[in-house]
Each structure stands twice: as C-alpha cells, then as structure tokens.
C-alpha cells in the first residue's frame, strides 16, 4: 500500500462534520479492501470490521475521527454571494481569498471574498472579518446559485495536496484526523491474518470537531475489550508550547492521562521499544481533548489508550504531517495488535 497516495485519497474526501455521508461510497471503496465488513451506525460513524475467525474473540475498538472542520451556508445575498457560519473551530486569519468547495447539487469551486479596505467602517481597520460575516464567491448570480445551493449546504477547504521536505512531509486539508485513519488502514494492511487474535472494529467516527457527538454510541454498541483512540496533536513550531508540543518525525505520541489505561499504554510503549520504533509521551492530566475521553467510561469502562500523530497548522487547509510518523505509527499499531491479543 502506498501510504502517501492513500492518505491523499482519504483526506481529500469531503467529510465536514455532520456531512460524513457525502462520499461514503468512495470511502468504502478505499478502505474495504483491507476489512471484512462495514456498517454505518445511526449517528454517522463509519465502522469497518476485521474478523480473526477465532471463537469468542476479544474486541479491539480503534477510533480515528473522520470529520473535519468547515463552513455551512446560512444565506444567499442578492449578488449571489453565500453567507456562512462555521462548523468546528475554523480560523478567520486564513480565510481572505481562500479556495473552498461548496458541496451543493454539484461541487462548486469558490473563493472567500476579501473585504476591500475602502468598505471598512471605523473601528474595523486592522481587524479580520469575523467568520459570521464572511462571504463565499462562486461567480454565480443569485438565481443561478440558488438552483444549486440551499441553506445548510456544507463548504470545505479545497482539496489540494503538496509534498515538502523532499517528500517527507505532506500538506493539505483534512489531515486532522484522516491521517490517523490512514495510519490505521496501513497497519491493518500489514497485519498477518495468522497473527490476528482479536476482532478489530475500526470506527471512522463522526462529529468530533463539533463536540465529540458520536463516538460514544459506537463504543457503547460494540462493547469492546480494549480501545485505541488516534488523533493528531500539536507539532513543535515557533510560537508553540515547548513543553507540550511534540516533535515532528519523532514517532507516535502515547499519552499519560487519568483517562487512558496505564497498563495498555505502557504495553504500547514497551512494544515500540522492543521493535525499535520511535515514540514520544505527553501528559494530559484529566482530559485529553480527544475521543479517548468519550470512550474510556462507556459501557462499564473500556481500557483505552491514546496514540497521536504530531501535526502542524491544525484546522487549516495546509495541515502538515511527517510521513515517517504515519508509517511508524502504523507499524507500532500492527505490532501492538499482533502481540497484545495473540496469547489472549
């Protein structure tokens, strides 16, 4: 599996929170070659199952959220411009003249309008146009765009990807958190069936960016024996927090937290050491801000570990990840799955 190519295909899918069904056929086409079964639950999670074929196997739940931040149409102006509001935490600094796609009756390319300086009222100079006042320009007139787009139509960053650092880094929209999903699929692709001692339930969960709304339902229904939540975490960069930000290319980040299960997390760390795979550790005392928080106490409690991949420029159209981290995280997951459940 060409993990870079796969990552770009996966991340470029439209999955703005609440609209994760938009390209589900394409999602299944990409992921199903590596799994046995797939199901979509009542809250929008896409779940892929890999069976070990052994009697009464343990269940391992792996989560990587599938949704991404975006915008939604709240009105159409007389000049055809779309008025919008945000879905999840988007950044107004990055919007002037940003390329977007409006997912109406067809994919419509658009540009976020720049407010010309002469139209600023006093007190607005030097300030950004807040997201709630942004306009999206598709070039269509009101009548034309009204036939293609309605109130509630989602808008996402344009899916454009590039490589940097001699191909070591990939950059584009939707890496949070589909890059982790990509790493999971890569791990599963490397698994040897004969070494598989558990059933894997891989949930590409919905609605994380708008307040972790869906994953607990999947965990509740599946009642796994163990869970691994994967998400992105802040990569070290100028202006960041030197104590808590993680090294890009430094390997998977395994979190210490009251939320995460110490024994399972330590097992993952020792597996990394035994296999010579790089890893890092961070501390999120009582809340991790990830889906681990939502899985750990569901259904009587699920021993949960949190594994993260460092990312730069989170929630932008230029999210950047080191491909070494995608690959090493996948290798670690593969080894953890093969060793943790073999004797079980």
């Amino acid at each position, binding site marked *: 599996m060409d993990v870079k190519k796969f990552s770009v295909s996966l991340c470029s899918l439209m999955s703005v929170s609440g609209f994760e069904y938009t390209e589900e056929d394409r999602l299944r086409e990409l992921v199903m070659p590596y799994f046995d079964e797939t199901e979509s639950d009542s809250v929008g999670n896409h779940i892929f199952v890999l069976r070990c074929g052994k009697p009464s196997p343990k269940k391992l739940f792996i989560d990587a959220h599938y949704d991404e931040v975006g915008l939604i149409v709240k009105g159409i102006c007389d000049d055809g411009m779309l008025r919008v509001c945000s879905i999840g935490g988007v950044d107004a600094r990055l919007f*002037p003249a940003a*390329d977007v796609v409006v997912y109406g009756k067809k994919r419509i390319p658009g540009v976020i309008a720049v407010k010309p300086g002469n*139209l600023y009222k006093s007190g607005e100079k030097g300030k950004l146009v807040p997201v709630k006042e942004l306009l999206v320009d598709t070039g269509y007139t009101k009548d034309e765009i009204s036939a293609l787009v309605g109130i509630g139509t989602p808008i996402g960053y344009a899916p454009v990807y590039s490589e940097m650092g001699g191909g070591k880094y990939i*950059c584009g929209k939707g890496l949070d958190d589909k890059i982790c999903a990509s790493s999971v699929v890569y791990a599963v692709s490397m698994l040897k069936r004969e070494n598989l001692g558990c059933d894997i339930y891989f949930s590409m969960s919905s609605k994380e960016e708008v307040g972790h709304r869906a994953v607990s339902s999947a965990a509740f229904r599946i009642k796994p024996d163990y869970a691994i939540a994967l998400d992105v975490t802040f990569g070290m960069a*100028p202006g960041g927090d030197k104590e808590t930000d993680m090294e890009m290319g430094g390997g998977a980040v395994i979190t210490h937290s009251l939320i995460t299960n110490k024994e399972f997390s330590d097992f993952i760390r020792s597996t990394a050491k035994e296999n010579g795979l790089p890893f890092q550790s961070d501390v999120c005392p009582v809340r991790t801000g990830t889906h681990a928080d939502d899985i750990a106490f569901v259904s009587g409690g699920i021993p949960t570990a949190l594994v993260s991949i460092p990312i730069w420029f*989170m929630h932008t159209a230029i999210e950047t990840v080191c491909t070494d981290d995608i690959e090493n995280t996948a290798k670690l997951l593969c080894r953890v799955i093969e060793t943790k459940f073999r004797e079980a």
Partner: protein
Amino acid sequence: MKSFDFDFLRELSLEFGPCGCEKAVLGIIKNRIEKYCDETYYDACGNLIAAIKGKSEKITAFYTNVDEAGFYVKAIDDDGRARISLLGSGATEYLSGRRVSVGNGVKTYDGVVAARPIHSLSKDEETKPTSADKLYIELCTGKKEETEKLFGVGAFGTYKSEYSELAGRYIKCKALDARAGAAVMCDLIYGIDKAKTENGYYFCFTVMGSSGIRDGAAAAAAYNIGKCDLAVVLGTLGTSDLYGAEGRDAVCVCGEGAVISDSDGRTIYSAEEVKALKEKAEKAKIPYQENRACAGGGISADIQRGGEGVRTVCIEIPVKYPKTASVMINKTDCESALSLARLYITEE
C-alpha cells in the same frame, strides 16, 4: 480577429514572477512575441521592450507591468524556516495559511506560510491578521544548512495556487491582476502585420510595478523608447463591488467591461484621448465602464511624466481580490479590454 487567449493568461499567471524577479515571466512573453516584432530586448532595468517599426513617424507605445505580489527572504532560522519581508504593496493578511514558492526564479521550492493552530490563539490574536514579524515559511527542511542548499537570504517568493474557472464566467488564479494586461498586449501584437503597418508600435512589459517605487522601472522604459505620440497603459483595477457597496464605493463592476479611467490615484489621463477612446468604444459597441472612485494608480503616472511627457490613456480589467492567491477576473472583461486596445492598432 482571434478572441482573448485564456490558455496563455493561465500559463503567464502560474509562472513565478514576484516583484523584482520577473525573468521567467518575461521569458515566456519574449518567446511568444519575438517572431511578430522587429526588435525585442531587455533594457537596463530588466523591462522587456518590443518594437514593430512603421513607415510613418507616428508611434504608439503600449505598457503593462508583469510583476505579482511577493516577498523577500530576509533570514533563515536555525531550524530552516524562512523569515520574510513583503515586497511593495502586498498585504500580510492574505499570506497566512497559503502555499508559496520560494527561490530565484530558475528553480523554486514549495513551502507554506505558517499559521499557529486556532486552539492556541488568544481572543485578541483570533481577531487580527498575523503580524509580518511573526510570519514564516515552513519548508520542512529541519535545518538552516538544508534550506541554504535550496536558497539563501534575498531569495524571492510568491503564492502558489491553481488556475480554475468559476461559474463558467470567472477565472481564478494567483497573479491574474499582474498578467492580464500582458496577455492582452501579446494578443494585440498578433493582430499587427509588421510588413504592412504604417505606424510604429512599442510594447513595454515592465518590472517592479507593484513595488511602490515612484518613477521607477516603467519611467525608465518610457525614457528608453524615446518620444511617442501616445501611451496606452494596460492593467487591472481592483473592484470593491462587494458587501453591498454601491456607486462610487464599488469603484468598478466585474462583467461590465474594461475600465477607461478619466483619472486615478496618481494620474489625470489625457482628456482628449480618453474622450476619443470612449467615442470609438461606443461606435464599435465595446462595453466599457468608468473608474467611479478615481481609484487605483499603477505605472501610468511614471509613463505620463517620464522624460518630456506623453499623452496617456489607460485600459484596465476589473479584478476581485487583487494581490491574493485567488484573484478573480470576469472573462468578458478580458475580451472588452482586448477589443478596446485593438482600436489603437486599427489603422484608418
């Protein structure tokens, strides 16, 4: 007559050509027009000048500047990141989160203008553009020495973006505001049969137009070609026809034809030439519009007042979002500008 060549504008706009580093763009233009001209050369400032000689002494000079918004690399951090200074009238608020190319024009490298994650911004930071001193280019080299293998301090940079069509009506790309005039001028050159023309023509593709330097490279070009009867400046004008702006506030409107300015921020154009152009446009049924706010002001002033002075008119294509990675132009306005410019090569 051939209609406006959008494929060529696409090629020009995608090329790397920030203010002060226009060689690659001018190279494309030179290749394109050389065989249609009697002479093409670069002057001492780097302007590309082409001439079609006529039999009479009447000479019309066309001007357009070709440089796009960009920046200089002013320092390279120990971790390989590039710190930047804006060139001329670019704006920092359009840079955050954009893909960029950095290099010397011959070879360029991809990077991104970094943006701290929204999760770590203070309330105050969320409402303001990132200040220029905090902007940096991430190139993912990891080390100063690695970045220095690619380029050094003094390298140029500009946006990297895609060319696309919107609504079948608009084109969108970086640098359209800097190259639309050049595309018009190249199309114009096709239309002149150099063996038959009575009049003489100069075509000046000027550099550093967006630098804000007054009486700069364009003035030098005007001096270098010498006395002309008329200067026709081809360019673009930013519209403010957004957010419900009306009348004067809108400046001009995309889709209503090229703009013939009576005056702009720096120039009062030759009244009789402006009047004559408008009359000809009306007679030929070519749509045009006025510059409602006397806004803008590019290289015209440098040309009008360069040397002993020349009667000057200006034909501008309205653009949305100038100086950004996603400039938008209504295609019909390009056709209008080309038709208007052709009025000056139609010999009666």
